[in-house]
């Protein structure tokens, strides 16, 4: 609680971050900021459109190899599309889908957790059963089944990404909301005449927001992995859209002749998820002292 006031200004936050972080955490943050910038300014950075074909320059290697040129610094794919541009647009789409999925998941899970805490009784029983059910099964398999049953399009795919991880938010929020309800301030607000909606939205939510945010930073890289894995298998983002996962998936067929198609996006996936888990671990240790040393 005592931190609340002191981390409120960005400058103070930056100072605290610098003092308490290790070089790897700082590099992680730098990389993530770079990725966010790439995603935001993809149109300005990318030398080509991600669908533009250069048929005379098919399977061109990266610039440092023989036959490579600065026109296509990371080479081209089987139909002459610029790998660098495709990686840039893929970063945008993968991060966008993961962000959307994370936000939707947080919203769904938080609402369900609040519902359980608000109505208790059979609603709570239903929610806990659903949480246990969800956490007992690998989500990846359920996602595959859902995509098989409902068919795949962008909206359904994003919805599946959004459902991913809801049970962890719900479990955390339910527990914390139960605890917060019993706190004096929630009871006091009731005696002042505040509606449950006001108590949850204006008071309990800000008080448990840090736990939700930590879970979002942990959930985000996992959503990236889920999206890229499904896209790699050809069951996620569909062409002509491009994601890091389906670039690796298509590049796999050219590993013998044009390895660069798969390797560039693979490296980006690795570094991004690594940066997020380093940062997430650090954040969790900072904000939640109970899990230290794991």
């Amino acid at each position, binding site marked *: 609680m005592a931190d609340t006031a002191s981390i409120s200004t960005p400058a103070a936050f930056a100072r605290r971050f610098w003092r308490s972080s290790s070089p790897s955490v700082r590099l992680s943050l730098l990389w993530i900021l770079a990725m966010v910038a790439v995603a935001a300014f993809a149109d300005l950075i990318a030398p080509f459109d991600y669908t533009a074909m250069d048929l005379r320059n098919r399977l061109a290697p990266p610039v440092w190899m023989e036959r490579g040129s600065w026109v296509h610094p990371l080479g081209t794919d089987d139909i002459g599309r610029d790998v660098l541009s495709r990686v840039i647009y893929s970063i945008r789409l993968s991060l966008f889908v993961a962000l959307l999925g994370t936000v939707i998941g947080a919203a769904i899970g938080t609402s369900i957790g609040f519902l359980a805490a608000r109505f208790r009784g059979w609603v709570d029983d239903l929610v806990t*059963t659903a949480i*246990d*059910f969800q*956490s*007992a*099964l*690998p989500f*990846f*398999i*359920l996602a*595959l*089944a*859902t*995509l*098989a*049953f*409902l*068919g795949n399009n962008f909206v359904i795919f994003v919805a599946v990404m959004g459902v991913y991880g809801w049970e962890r938010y719900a479990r955390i929020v339910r527990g914390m909301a139960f605890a917060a309800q019993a706190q004096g301030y929630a009871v006091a607000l009731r005696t002042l005449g505040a509606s449950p909606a006001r108590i949850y939205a204006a008071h309990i939510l800000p008080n448990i927001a840090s736990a939700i945010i930590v879970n979002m930073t942990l959930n985000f*890289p996992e959503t990236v*992995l889920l999206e*890229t*894995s499904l896209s*790699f*298998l*050809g*069951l996620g983002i569909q062409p002509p859209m491009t994601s890091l*996962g389906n670039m*690796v*998936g298509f*590049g*796999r067929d050219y*590993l*013998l002749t044009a*390895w660069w198609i*798969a*390797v560039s996006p*693979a490296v980006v*996936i*690795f570094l991004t*998820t*690594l940066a*997020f*888990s*380093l940062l997430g*671990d650090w954040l969790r240790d900072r904000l939640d002292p109970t899990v230290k*040393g*794991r």
Partner: protein
Amino acid sequence: MLSFVLRKGLRAGLTVLLLATFTFFVLRTSGDPAVLLVGLEAGPEAVEAFRRRWGLDQPLWKQYAIYLQQLLSGDFGQSFVGNRPALEVVAERLPKTLWLMGVTAVVTLAIGIPLGVVAALRRDSWIDRLAIGVSVAGLSLPNFVVGVLLILLFGVALMLLPTTGSETAWHFILPVATMATGDAAVFARFARSAMLDVLNQPFMRTASAKGLDRRRAVMRHAVPNAAIPLVTVFGLYVGRIIVGAVITENVFAWPGVGSLLVLSVETRDLAVVQTIVILVGVTMVVTNITIDIAYRWLDPRTAEERTLG
């Protein structure tokens, strides 16, 4: 203990029932299941026959009851590839997958646990830092990226190992390495923290104070006690290895259930998908229940139950 097993069994049954219900209703909301399950190529007579066989002309609750009855009697529907029972299609692919997962699990544990124990005993040494560093990478590296990189290195650059198929023992090396690298590091991390917990316990300090040989004290007392929390990690691992197998099989064209699942999703061979989903559900539930019982067996202090499945 008996009531504990009963209660766990009931929960497990409920989870499988929920899963079956999920597939039932998602299938029903996705269009005409008769057309979907029989396939568009089949004529109207076949669809009609299918409707009657599955009772699709009945009201929904009755369909649901019939569906559950069919599942219980082992009828998971027809795969429209070769028009054979879905269960049969899955079953013939199963041994390949079980081999892959079994070998991977053995390798993962055989590398991960000793590495974690050594890391704990030599805290803050290079081996400790390596184990922690690799485990962070291991958790964040998706299997398909590892797989693709391994193919590039050993299959393409060095041309040492086969990268597709499952015919010989050599074929196991790359898929197993793909799945085991990250997970071994994760196990090492858990084993390390479990060992550290035990090493700091009073009975270990007593043992060394009594002048007991350190190696014997570690092997006799520390390792068995550290194994207890690892048992719970194993439940999560089974989920990871199933997902890992689906992806890895596709990277290396391994002819198992994982490739079948992805193929079936692509071709919308829904009976097969449904069979695999329920199979995975049963596996997870059985694993969790086994772990719960094992945990109680190993650690009689835990009256409290875990909340998993």
